[in-house]
């Protein structure tokens, strides 16, 4: 009972995308007229980031695709995920994802767009990893997030640079600045940043590997994210930036090249699969490649081809994914060789599969046919590499036709086979999606004119101010595209017939490829982990000695570096002969004590020698007429000496530590001498400058008048600074008392 209720509730949430869908439909008439509406709310106005929203033909088309498929995916998931432990959480993520996608295509601000872009990435991470009992699902979710998330950050660099040049983040304001941007010396760099962002999201070669791996996600998620919406975000971005960065040779060459290679690679890899879902994933990569390739053009036919194929692909691919989901759900397997004859038990699913596959294969009367025709027309007019583009298009389409056959014929026709579960028709919520979307492909195919006028034309003109109107017709007459269509069908049929023999051969070839994106990713991850471990072992090895050495070493090198590079004066040398004999003696004594510290084998001896150095310093203060300083120094020195000596008595002797002959100690000595020299030099340099006599003058004039004393030091100590002196005395006394009480407690 509980379960049925939650399913009904889940189905009801489909009203959310439906409402947005209806809202966007109401914008279609205005979009046809080329109108766009803008909204804006302040967000972080200080840096020019606002919630700008623009609704034009392109965003409407994408929004309709997102919400349209969204409705059916929600309905589908209500049954598909029924009984799942985190049912509610799943729908929360799904709807959040849908809203972020809508936000992405409506955003008119680069930073806002980026925010939604990363949100879709994060939510897709949560959705891919949803099947969290599966270890591969978890690691693949992470891979998808790292690849697309990193791509997103690269994109952000590009956005920030663009913002820096044109001084606005409004996307609708960028097209006017296209010339300015394209004249920049770092135009190529910006372009690379934006393209890498789009390529990672839309799974272009060489970043394509994450998409098939992400198929670990629940099937409705694959249908929604990995065919109709999220992977199209990169395509959307390329279309949006077409008038801004597009039209240059770099743009066209890269897009046509990368897109074409991706399309061919995806098609070849698709044939090599036997898992239905992975096969669909590779055909998605192929389709994305084709889209990128056509966005590389700048003629109306090429761009129209891109937009039309976008719609075509979203329709048939989401339907097919949902069909695969049904097969998986009802039979318990996705292995193509173990399914057959489903038409008898699942008629409605078969209808959805057949219509979608025929659209995919490009049969006449289906939208796919229109898409293919316009695609060939576009390929032939490509500015750069038209021959390559046409070849890639024909080959991919032929492979696509073959795959459509594999997916739609194989599981449904022929004798029924033994499957883990006895197949039966899915609940209505599940087959409704594929059947409706599949039928839509047929309806649109029969009335292409309508689709062209209301959806394609406004979308194309939103990013390409067209001179000639877009023409979508069922029959364009006998021309080159039609010829190519026949060629495609023939090739596709041939490929379908020899599929078994090439599948094994291809799979074998692919396994032997020396470098793939997937392996590079794995190698990169492993190398990072190794570097991290090595670095930690090297710098954070737990040895205090190493830490202090690093700190002092960096201090010495940095300071010396600053001086070596920038100093104009050298610190003056001491006037050695002018030193009185007493001071020579003191210095010698301290030097000797230092030697004792270094070679001492007993801790107490070393500490005592340190005490000698400290007392020597106190004596130097005394010689220079600072009795107060000398006194304090002596007191502190004595206290420290006593406390340290008591602590050290409890420690093991020094005998076992490294002697003078270990290289480590020589290195330590080097650092010590270095830092000593440096500090001495700096002190000399700073005391070499003129003294500030302000205070001296004040005390010279005032000590006799105000305090009736001639000895300035005495007057300062007991008159001007008497409270300070008192404080110092209290501190030293307290420290002594505290030390004493600690000792007394020990003895007790």
């Amino acid at each position, binding site marked *: 009972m509980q379960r049925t209720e939650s399913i009904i509730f889940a189905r009801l949430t489909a009203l959310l995308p439906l409402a947005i869908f209806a809202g966007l439909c109401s914008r279609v008439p205005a979009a046809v007229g080329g109108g766009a509406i803008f909204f804006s709310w*302040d*967000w*972080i106005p*200080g*840096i020019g980031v606002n919630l700008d929203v623009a609704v034009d033909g392109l965003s409407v088309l994408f929004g309709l695709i997102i919400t349209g498929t969204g409705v059916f995916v929600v309905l589908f998931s209500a049954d598909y995920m029924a009984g799942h432990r985190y049912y509610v959480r799943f729908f929360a993520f799904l709807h959040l994802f849908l809203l972020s996608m809508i936000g992405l295509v409506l955003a008119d601000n680069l*930073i806002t767009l980026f*925010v939604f872009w*990363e*949100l879709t*990435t*994060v939510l897709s991470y949560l959705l891919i*990893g949803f099947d*969290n*009992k599966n270890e591969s699902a*978890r690691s693949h*979710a*992470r891979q998808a*997030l*790292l690849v697309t*998330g*990193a791509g997103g*950050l*690269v994109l*952000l*660099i590009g956005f*920030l*640079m663009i*913002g*820096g040049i044109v001084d606005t983040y409004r996307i609708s304001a960028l097209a006017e600045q296209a010339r300015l941007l394209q004249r920049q010396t770092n135009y190529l760099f910006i372009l690379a940043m934006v393209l890498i962002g789009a390529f990672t999201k839309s799974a272009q070669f060489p970043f394509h590997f994450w998409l098939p791996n992400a198929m670990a996600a629940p099937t409705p998620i694959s249908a929604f994210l990995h065919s109709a919406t999220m992977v199209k975000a990169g395509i959307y971005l390329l279309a949006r930036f077409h008038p801004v960065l597009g039209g240059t040779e770099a743009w066209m060459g890269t897009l046509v090249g990368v897109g074409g290679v991706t399309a061919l690679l995806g098609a070849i890899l698709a044939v090599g699969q036997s898992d239905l879902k992975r096969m669909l994933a590779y055909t998605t990569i192929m389709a994305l490649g084709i889209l990128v390739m056509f966005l590389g053009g700048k003629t109306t036919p090429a761009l129209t081809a891109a937009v039309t194929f976008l719609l075509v692909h979203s329709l048939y691919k989401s339907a097919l994914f949902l069909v695969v989901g049904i097969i998986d759900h009802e039979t318990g397997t996705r292995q193509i060789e173990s399914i057959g004859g489903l038409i008898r038990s699942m008629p409605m699913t078969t209808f959805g599969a057949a219509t979608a596959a025929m659209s995919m294969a490009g049969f006449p009367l289906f939208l796919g046919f229109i898409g293919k025709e316009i695609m060939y027309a576009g390929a032939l007019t490509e500015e750069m590499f038209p021959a390559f583009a046409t070849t890639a298009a024909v080959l991919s389409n032929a492979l696509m036709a073959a795959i459509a056959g594999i997916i739609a014929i194989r599981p449904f026709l022929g004798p029924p086979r033994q499957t883990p579960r006895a197949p039966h028709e899915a609940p209505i919520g599940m087959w409704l999606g594929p059947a409706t979307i599949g039928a839509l492909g047929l309806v649109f195919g029969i009335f292409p004119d309508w689709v062209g006028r209301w959806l394609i034309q406004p979308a194309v003109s939103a990013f390409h101010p067209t001179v000639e109107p877009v023409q979508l017709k069922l029959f364009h007459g006998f021309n080159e595209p039609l010829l190519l269509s026949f060629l495609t069908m023939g090739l596709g049929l041939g490929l379908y017939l020899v599929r078994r023999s090439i599948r094994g051969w291809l799979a074998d070839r692919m396994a032997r490829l020396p470098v793939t994106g997937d392996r590079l990713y794995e190698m990169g*991850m492993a190398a*990072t*982990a190794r*570097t*991290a*471990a090595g*670095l*930690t072992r090297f*710098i*954070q090895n737990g040895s*205090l000695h190493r*830490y*202090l050495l*690093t*700190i002092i070493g*960096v*201090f010495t090198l*940095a*300071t010396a570096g*600053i*001086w070596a590079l*920038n*100093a104009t004066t050298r610190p003056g040398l001491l006037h050695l002969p002018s030193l009185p004999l007493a001071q020579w003696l003191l210095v010698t004594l301290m030097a000797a004590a230092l030697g004792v510290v270094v070679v001492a084998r007993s801790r107490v001896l070393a500490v005592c020698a340190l005490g000698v150095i400290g007392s020597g310093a106190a004596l130097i203060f005394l010689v220079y007429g600072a009795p107060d300083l000398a006194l304090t120094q002596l007191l502190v020195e004595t206290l420290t000496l006593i406390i340290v000596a008591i602590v050290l008595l409890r420690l093991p002797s020094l005998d076992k530590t490294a002697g003078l002959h270990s290289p480590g100690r020589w290195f330590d000595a080097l650092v010590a001498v270095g830092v000593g020299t440096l500090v001495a030099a*700096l*002190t000399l*340099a*700073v*005391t070499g*400058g003129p003294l*500030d006599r*302000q205070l001296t003058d004040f005390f010279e004039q005032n000590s006799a008048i105000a305090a009736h004393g001639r000895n300035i030091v005495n007057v300062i100590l007991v008159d001007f600074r008497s409270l300070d002196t008192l404080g110092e005395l209290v501190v030293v006394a307290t420290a002594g008392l505290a030390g004493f009480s600690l000792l007394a407690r020990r003895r007790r």
Partner: protein
Amino acid sequence: MNWILLTPELTLLLAAALFLVLACLKPDPRRDYQLAVSMAALTVAAGIACATMSGDLFNHVYRVDLFSQVFKALLSIGFFLVIFLCDDFQGVAPTHHGEGYFLLAVCTLSMMMLASAVHLLAIVLALELSSYSLYILVFLRRDSRWGMITGLRYFLVGASASAIMLFGLALIYGVTGAVHVDILIQRLPAMLDRPMVVTGLLLTLAGFFFKLAVFPFHFWAPEAYQGAPNPVAAFIAAVSKVAAVAILLRIISLAQGNSDLLTRGLIAMAVVSMTVGNLAAIAQRDFKRLMAFSSVAHAGYLLLGMLCMTPAGYAAAMFYGAAVLVMKYTCFMVMTRVAEDGGNLQIDELAGLHRRSPLLALALMMALFSLGGIPPTIGFSGKLIIFVAAMQKGYLVLVIIAMINVVISLYYYLLVLKAAYLDEPTRPRPAISLTIPARLVAVVMIVLIVGLGFYPVALLDLVQAAVLRLP
């Protein structure tokens, strides 16, 4: 002298005195905790009430202005949150709870003084007072295996940093003859091309870099975090960074944006900190060590904002300082609640957290996403503001390096997240029960992380107004 200006400090002083007395009486953890929370709440009230006051105290050694007061409000909030986390305070023996609260109060007090001090000697005094409180707080760890060793290391690294800082201060005084910030501002700009001045400034900064855990003064961080009682680690990771940002801004702004040498030095430290911190974090298995290295990396991001030496950069650093407080506190809050008996927490012990406590798991996820700079969180807005400020100064390469670092950091934050959300525990563990106030704080932290991500303007306006008080 207007003592009202000192209300937050006086409240803390009162709290410290109270706990000094209580520490001598018979220990009663319940009473101590309730008193501590009340005093901390009073401090927050005082900190916020005095947020807009201004004036000079103690012969102009102590400056109360919007800059210092915003930091004090942040510090008092952080103090309250950390005290709140001490409800079981398992890492410290019950007899020492009083001392713990006393030291936390003294440390917060000295960090407030750090935000207000405008005299170099006052700065040193405040800095040392806060450092020494922390050394002893680390020692308080009940498990002597940790407390003693790490406390001593923390102290020795800190003492080295202090020595270097004092030498730097001596150099500055030697060259300029000034120890007051106001006079330094007049004298320094003309001398900034002199290597002596730059050396002095950089060495002075060393003491504060130690607080912020910037390479190479970061060595203490992993071990101190690991060795400290959990709430103390939270205090070091979240609250003390805020004070470090305050004083670094105060000193770096002395250069008034026209020292190439200083900028170059800061760039080097920022880049090395980010990279070393993020790379080393990957290799960690202990939650607190991982957070420590992530702190090192975040110190790099903070420096990136500061080294712009523009009001936008300072505001960005200040904003990000507040963000670090929120994010790091949330992580440590979750860690403290999950760790058993106040012990340390391995990352794989987080497994199944989303079932043991969905609220804590959500809080951890939000905090990690925020640390990783994923929108719409406070960590994202903070990083964005820093990056924009850096781009305005033309530091494209730096921004790219920072972005690469963000990607690296994403990797290990995801490892933690995976443990909390996706992994199954090896043996079943009981659900974590939270008191209603604890739940409330967790919810507030989530709201802050997401809320300030969506709507950063209020805080941003505040910090922008605050940094205008800097020269």
